[in-house]
């Protein structure tokens, strides 16, 4: 299949950047990243600068292969990262626009690569459990309600890619932060620090320059792990509750 790619090229964060068109011959069995590899091999053989894009596991769990494809973070297929998106989703002769995440808190490093350290800072602010939780406990040694366990597990599938903020018209990272808060806060080991964790992570999220959530809901539609905005409600509830019930 013959494709025309309009790829965002930008040499660094202060560069203005713009779209450059390339023609690529791809195979419908290729993943989107393999198609990008074909483009880069062609560029390298022509002694041109290859397109910078992030990729790591290529099995949909690392959250690095971030591109906005035809205006949609991670492309048109629901619940899928770019590496798991296959070219059979496109037709011969298609024009595909590829852009980086556009969020103030994610400065562009080069082309499609953005700096997502802001998400790391939110985790560093409180997205952990301070005590040593030891080896994996025996089954049923720590009682936990099935409903809570399932909700925590659903939230824990967040891979921290930042598609939520990329899809958000406000550039808000509430879905990410709420997934981390729900994942830790619903489990017995994480409950101890829950209130203070919420305050610290929200404060850091605000400090990093993410926008405010206005309950548009675009994030949960584009999330490759289909994290629900129910987590955002839980974050709101926990934050307001912790402000009313801690000494800080």
């Amino acid at each position, binding site marked *: 299949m013959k494709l025309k790619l*309009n790829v965002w090229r930008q040499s660094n964060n202060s560069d203005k950047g713009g*779209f450059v068109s390339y023609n690529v011959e791809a195979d419908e069995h290729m993943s989107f990243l393999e198609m990008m590899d074909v483009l880069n091999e062609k560029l390298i053989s022509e002694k041109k600068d290859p397109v910078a894009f992030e990729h790591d596991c290529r099995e949909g769990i690392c959250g690095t292969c971030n591109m*906005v494809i*035809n*205006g*949609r973070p991670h492309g*048109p297929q629901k619940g899928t990262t770019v590496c798991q998106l296959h070219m059979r989703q496109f037709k011969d002769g298609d024009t595909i*626009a590829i*852009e980086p*995440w*556009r*969020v*103030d*808190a*994610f400065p562009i490093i080069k082309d499609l690569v953005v700096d997502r350290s802001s998400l790391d800072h939110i985790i560093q602010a409180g997205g952990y459990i301070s005590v040593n939780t030891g080896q994996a406990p025996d089954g049923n040694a720590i009682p936990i309600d099935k409903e809570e366990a399932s909700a925590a597990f659903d939230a824990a599938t967040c891979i921290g890619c930042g598609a939520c903020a990329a*899809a*958000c*018209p*406000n*550039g*808000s990272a*509430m879905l990410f932060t709420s997934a981390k808060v729900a994942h830790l806060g619903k489990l017995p080991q994480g409950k101890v620090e829950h209130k203070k964790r919420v305050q610290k992570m*929200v*404060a850091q*999220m*605000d400090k990093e*320059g*993410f*926008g*405010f*959530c*206005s*309950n*548009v*809901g*675009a994030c949960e*539609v*584009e999330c490759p792990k289909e994290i629900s*905005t*129910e987590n*955002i*409600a*839980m*974050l*709101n*509830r*926990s*934050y*307001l*509750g912790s*402000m009313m019930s801690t000494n*800080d």
Partner: protein
Amino acid sequence: MKWIINLLTSSIGQKLVMSLTGLFLISFVIVHLIGNLQLLVDDGGYAFNTYAYFMTNNPLIKTISLGLYFFILLHAVQGLLIYFTNKKKSGGKSASKYAVRTYENGSWASKNMALLGTLILFFLCVHMGDFWYKMKFTDDLAMVTYDGYDQPIKDLYTRVSVAFQELWIVAVYLVGLFALAFHLMHGFSSAFQTLGLRHKKYTPLINGIGITLSVIIPLAYAVIPIWSYFK
């Protein structure tokens, strides 16, 4: 006291202000509607004028109305602050930050709350300038005498009836109500989400009430100018 400042300057705290003031304003809009439907009573204005007299002279109502003015301003100022903060942080030109858009995410109303709110604020200025200001601060209104009242009271009913003979005023009201409909369509359920009140047990009910209110309230209000115009 530092915690209150932390709360009210945080993103979630600022949304809390929007949520609580918004829900209060919705309750006002409902009470205001019920009162104003008395304009439709065919009694030459007795029901509405005595109601208006009560609303402008009862000390309790007068105190609550001070709170109402404050909450309207707070909702507007806080909303605009959030709008400009988000505009600055969105990483582009709001919803259309990507060059190609093949799929529209989220409702139109949810992405245009600031625009809809501004329309409603402009409408409020026209509305209050025409009736509220004239009722409270001027002697422009004619007086009428009713049994049981010591002195003549202001005839707001006639003022309203005259105003709604003007087609452009009716049009301004319909635009304002249209904006209100879409503002409520997102605002009502969004307020509960911000408060963290969400569960599959009752969220469908909240969403249902939100949609119902956003249709019924503006429609019922719209009956007043349209009925007065064609009367």
